[in-house]
């Protein structure tokens, strides 16, 4: 029993916390699917260039309706099934995390 429980705990750790988000190519135009989180959850963009991020929410969870990038002071409402286009230019390199309205789903913009 104990081994089973420890195994399950280990699995939970590996499954949720052990994953590595894969950052794709550096892109200036990215589509993010919003359902049970964000995919991709890691977006690499070039610093100093205007980029377009298109968010589409297909998950009815309330908290996903709000999309916030606090460091950029961006807060958008994502209506179900509608494409929300975000145009931004980040001049300073670095990581800009984003999250949902209740801070449970996370993602990150990386300006390189």
């Amino acid at each position, binding site marked *: 029993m104990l081994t089973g*429980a420890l195994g399950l705990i280990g699995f939970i750790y590996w499954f949720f916390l052990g994953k590595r988000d894969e950052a794709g190519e550096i892109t200036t135009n990215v589509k993010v699917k919003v359902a049970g*989180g964000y995919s991709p959850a890691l977006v690499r963009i070039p610093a100093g260039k205007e980029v377009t991020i298109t968010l589409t929410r297909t998950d*009815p969870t309330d*908290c996903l309706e709000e999309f*916030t990038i606090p460091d950029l002071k961006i807060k958008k409402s994502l209506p179900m099934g509608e494409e929300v286009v975000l145009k931004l230019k980040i001049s300073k390199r670095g990581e800009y995390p984003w999250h949902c309205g209740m801070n*449970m789903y996370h993602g990150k913009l990386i300006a390189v």
Partner: protein
Amino acid sequence: MTKTFPIAGMHCASCAVNIQRVLRKTPGVVAATVNYATEKANVEYDPAQTDEMKMGEAIKPLGYELVTEQQMDVVTEKKNNEVNRWKWKFIVGGVISVISIWGSFTGMNWGILLVLATISQFGVGWDFYKTTWASLQNRMANMDTLIAIGTSVAYGYSAAITLFGIKGEPYFDTSVTIIALIVLGKWLEARARGKTSEAIKRLMGLQPKTAKVIRGDREFEIRIDEIVVGDKIRVRPGEKVPVDGVVESGETSIDESMVTGESIPVYRHDGDAVIGGTLNTSGTIIFVAKKVGSETMLAQIIKLVEEAQASRAPIQKLVDVISGYFVPVVLMISVATFAGWYVFGPSTSSGLLGMLAGIAVLIIACPCALGLATPTALVVGTGLAAQHGILIKDAQNLEVAYKINHVIFDKTGTLTEGKPVVTDIKGGDEVLKLAASLEAGSEHPLARAILDAAEKAALKLERVEKFEGLAGEGVKGIINKKEYRLGKPLAETDEVKKMESEGKTVVVLGTKGKVLGVIAIADTVRETAKEAVAQLQKQKIEVSLLTGDNPRTAAAIAKQLGIKRYFAQVKPAADVGIAMATGTDVAMEAAGITLVNRDLKSIPLALKLSRSTLRTIKTNLFWAFAYNVVLIPVAALGILSPILASAAMATSSLSVVGNSLLLKKVKL
């Protein structure tokens, strides 16, 4: 037929009376009552004779808008749908829960209970599964994951007993009641959260949809986004000023309270600036549009408030870290709880007890209370500030403003009107004439005061040769072959000392070291300055004065205002800059706090609001943390039943939102 319509544009109780009167006179209307507090009209009418459109037309000339169902903002409508969805889920889930609890006490057939629980689990609770599935695909988890797993275990266990005749008692009431209570919490929370952003929604609703533009000698009604800079716009009493501009003709008083927070209507005539979104009350004016679209003051205010509400409070950092681990950790604790009970439990039923404790852990954990703690308070606080004409740049400035214990005022233009006037002239018109000649063309406020005085006395200015500015000391130049110097007194005579101790700035006109005359200039202290200083001191905030004047003038002004300390010619670095908006320009990049209403009394108000908001954030965070830290172990020990756990969880996020809404009750 009786119907209730929201009315947009009401700003006082007498508006309600006006609308009521007009509606009652509209053909087809049987009865009408208008409530100012709820901004709604209740109308009984004959649909054959009139409709929403006609009633809307009737009250439109008064400057109000009847909001018909079609016009209802799509977003609000969607929000309402969402709230309603939760409401219906709660009704269905609640009824099932009551029947199940009653059924399990009275020994109702397990088969019926199973059917009810199945409806609850996969009907009412379907969203939890949907979200969980989507999250798992991304290897993420949220609160819904915890609920889905927790209720599934209780449901699955009970279903197995019922269907396969395994020995034991089913716990159908547990899963259905958890679902009912959590759905209730979501419904109430969705309702309360809508209320947190009311302030910004009100700002967004201020701009009228159309404007009456004069082109040639005709007046056209055009959409607001069709207005271009330079358009001449006519605004009648009761109508809203559509965009920012400058009055060309006519005079009126305008109620600017909705934009600037200034409660007294302001008088406006030709040459004065008017602000889009404000209400013209008495006369008709024609003004020239100067700023349209995103350039208007209202648009800038909305943008600033939205940005502030999206910003990150430094206090939030810890939450950001925790929230990344929260749900997986709770899942692990839950598994450990079950295993712990199973292995070390006291009796043969330890497995069952372990299962219930494990479910309680999953259900009681509430990451959303943590997530909502800061943003809801921030949204209410910054929205409330904006309603009073105070724009807080971001959460960071709000957090620093909370700690402020010292306010330093710049004298000229802040504590004083910034429009100095000449009060004394020793040496007669000749001195004034020479001084004005030397200052001709200068834009310095003191120079302007001398020039104004000379103009008032109808003096003819002399030509100045070899003019020279003496950095910080004054000016010199040659008039009629004689060299004159105008500037700070070189010698402190009794006369100079006396004037300075009255708070006046003294300049001396001299030639070849001989004093020809003395001019004293004073700036009137703003009406609200003394009160603002007193209010700050009452809040135990130290107040100082900063000025480029000599210490005696500074001391005099400070004394007049009850300020104990003053700095002459120093520029201290401030933690939070507070700026007053000039004209219709509020895009103050540098200022942490911008006062749209230019009222000094807003400073104590802004600091009070910052403190209240931050206190709310702190209490929210404290309770959200304490709640999870205390109750998760309690649940693991098996002291809390899963049903009680779900009740606690539903209350916790609701209490956070409720506490943020309490900010609105802060006495300002």
